[in-house]
């Protein structure tokens, strides 16, 4: 398959870019932040996402979604990265929707149409410490009565403060089990954590949370495959978000190089800056190839697609990091001001880098798979 977007995918990209530019440009993020919005995301925008087919991009048509694949989800994620738009997209439309698509049909029917419509917000609760280490979770679920009793603490739960339900990964003896838990269940304590990029996550404490056996998604002790599959899709989409944010910061910087004058000429005429911009362009193009390839391989079910995802997440992370640092530096003093947008890109990239495993986490996976 050619490593470029198809005509339909390009149309989706244009639609997503156009929609966000009109309805949720960066001023939208600023408004939510500066007004200290109670939700931190716009529910109207989320419903509009539903109408546009973005919220249900990977959800099957029979559940009201668009029935598309990872590449299309990545296209939407990249667009969101360009406008820095806060939205429950990663948590609900990617991670939760992917986990649910392997679940029992009752769970699918209960939630997928509502996610696709931009009505429900779900969050995946995996991380526990400051770093993404899904293999080391310590939250437990013990058999209790007719179901399970959960104890543990989760963090970096995307939009968990406004979630209707949480998908919690917990240890059940030897294996990992995924539980779908109503956010209002007794013993669930949720603290909103406003992040550096003005997007939101939550810390979730589970204290003797009693759930019925039907809260289990998939099989008891059998949650690892579904979790890993959702995490990989999520990582590839976050990588696409990194490309969106990094590339947009780069484009603003190139524009600034063309217009900002010092010493009587555009600063873009100075070779010291030209070479840095050209290097950054190169890195971004190479990262774009890695991200698109990972998304395509997820769709194709290619063997070792997870390694392609790690390459993509690590590469996009490093490159976006470089892009936002260069953006601030080349903008000079104004790059440090809150008024200019470049700082917002730097903050968003820091968060996306940490989300679902940073470059070090993914490099470790590459090294392990490479037998060293």
């Amino acid at each position, binding site marked *: 398959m050619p490593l470029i977007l198809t005509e339909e995918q390009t149309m989706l990209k244009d639609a997503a870019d156009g929609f966000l530019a009109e309805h949720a440009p960066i001023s939208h993020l600023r408004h939510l932040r500066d007004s200290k919005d109670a939700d931190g995301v716009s529910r109207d925008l989320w419903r509009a996402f539903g109408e546009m087919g973005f919220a249900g991009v990977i959800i099957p048509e029979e559940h009201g979604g668009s029935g598309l694949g990872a590449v299309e989800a990545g296209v939407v994620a990249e667009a969101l990265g360009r406008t820095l738009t806060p939205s429950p997209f990663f948590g609900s439309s990617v991670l939760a929707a992917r986990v649910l698509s392997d679940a029992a049909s009752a769970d699918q029917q209960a939630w997928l149409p509502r996610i696709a419509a931009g009505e429900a917000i779900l969050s995946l609760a995996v991380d526990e410490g400051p770093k993404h280490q899904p293999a080391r979770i310590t939250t437990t679920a013990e058999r209790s009565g007719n179901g399970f009793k959960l104890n543990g603490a989760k963090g970096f739960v995307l939009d968990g403060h406004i979630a209707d339900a949480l998908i919690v990964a917990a240890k059940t003896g030897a294996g990992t089990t995924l539980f779908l838990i109503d956010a209002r269940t007794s013993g669930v304590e949720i603290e909103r954590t406003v992040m550096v990029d003005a997007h939101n996550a939550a810390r979730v404490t589970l204290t003797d949370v009693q759930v019925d056996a039907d809260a289990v998604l998939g099989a008891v002790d059998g949650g690892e495959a579904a979790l890993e599959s959702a995490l990989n899709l999520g990582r590839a989409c976050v990588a696409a978000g990194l490309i969106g944010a990094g590339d947009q910061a780069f484009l603003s910087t190139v524009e600034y190089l063309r217009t900002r004058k010092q010493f009587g000429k555009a600063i873009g*005429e100075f070779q010291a800056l030209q070479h840095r911009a050209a290097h950054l362009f190169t890195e971004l193009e190479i990262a774009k190839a890695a991200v698109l390839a990972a998304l395509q391989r997820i769709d194709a079910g290619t063997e070792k697609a997870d390694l392609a995802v790690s390459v993509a997440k690590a590469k996009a992370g490093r490159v976006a990091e470089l892009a936002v640092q260069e953006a601030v530096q080349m903008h000079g003093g104004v790059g440090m001001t809150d008024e200019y947008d470049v700082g917002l890109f730097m903050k968003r990239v820091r968060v996306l880098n940490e989300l679902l495993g940073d470059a070090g986490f993914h490099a470790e996976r590459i090294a392990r798979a490479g037998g060293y």
Partner: protein
Amino acid sequence: MTDLETFRAETRAWLEANCPAECRGPLDNDEDRVWGGRNATFKTPAHKRWMEVMGERGWTAPEWPTEYGGGGLTREQAKVLGSEMRRIDAQSPLSSFGIWMLGPALLQFGTEEQKKRFLPEIVRGEIRWCQGYSEPGAGSDLAGLQTRAEDRGDHWIVNGQKVWTSYADQADWIFCLVRTDPDAPKHLGISFVLFDMATPGVTTRPITLISGKSPFCETFFDDVRVEKENLVGTLNRGWDVAKALLAHERTMIGAMGDMGRPMGQVAVDSLGLDETGRLDEPMLRARIAELEIDVAAFRLSMERVGDQVKARQVSPAIASMLKYYGSELNKRRHELAMAAGGSDALEWESDRSRKGTAARDWLRTKANSIEGGTSEVQLNIIAKHLLQLPGA
């Protein structure tokens, strides 16, 4: 089965039947490469056979049209052929500046007669070409070249000197930039001509590099007769041909960023694993993983650029991006290979070190970011043609 799946099955069967065992597995060293030509040398008779059967099928130049001896494959089929060759670890049947550089330029600028004459013998590995571009006074400023071609009616007489001519001492023919109008602005007085290295007046002198090897030559032209029919493209517009060819050369040099064994394996062979199954050199291990990520991403980027070119979504200047990144990547790879090899990799003459192969290869890569246009020149091109920065 789709057509492509059928093609894959047939290709796999054909390769299994025709790729000799001796031609599978990594090359021991660069000297074992097959370059073809009148004075071709082969490591084994099997290597000769492998070049010949692939050449007959046109699969040494899979995407060239069949009427010029090429394989006539689509881009997707060529990708399948490549992946099937990698599957059995097949060595490249033929390394060739004719295939990598001259051929694409001839396909674009050559006359029908020139294509019919030169391309099939390139595909079959019968004629080995070299490139006459750089001169002592024209390196990064290539268009400042001074080798003169004087018009003598039905032919030119060429005088001058080239330098860094790769394998000029082993090549049969040269594609060469000469100044045909000394009075025109420098880019507008250059022509692109072809001639036989056996023509009287052509001499070559190998240059010994820091690697101890001599892949490059100085090449001298002393009243060399060049026939007018061997002009490629328009008189005095050779710079257009030269630039198009440079794009292919740059892509080729860039592709070196994706060659050789996985660096993790190289390091494991040298250093072994600790009890947790990791390389016992954590700092080196991290650098290797970062390199392998970049190599994987770069490989995909080459594929993407090819697809973009095919879909006419990018400027040909994109080759500068691949050249810049791939050559820097290859230098990084060899720095790590030396670190992984430690003092073993420092041995220069021993059989154990295969006469210092690692060290010599490492040193050779330092030219990657100079030859075919320096990294700095590539960055200039990107700034000017891809970013349209002012004054670039």
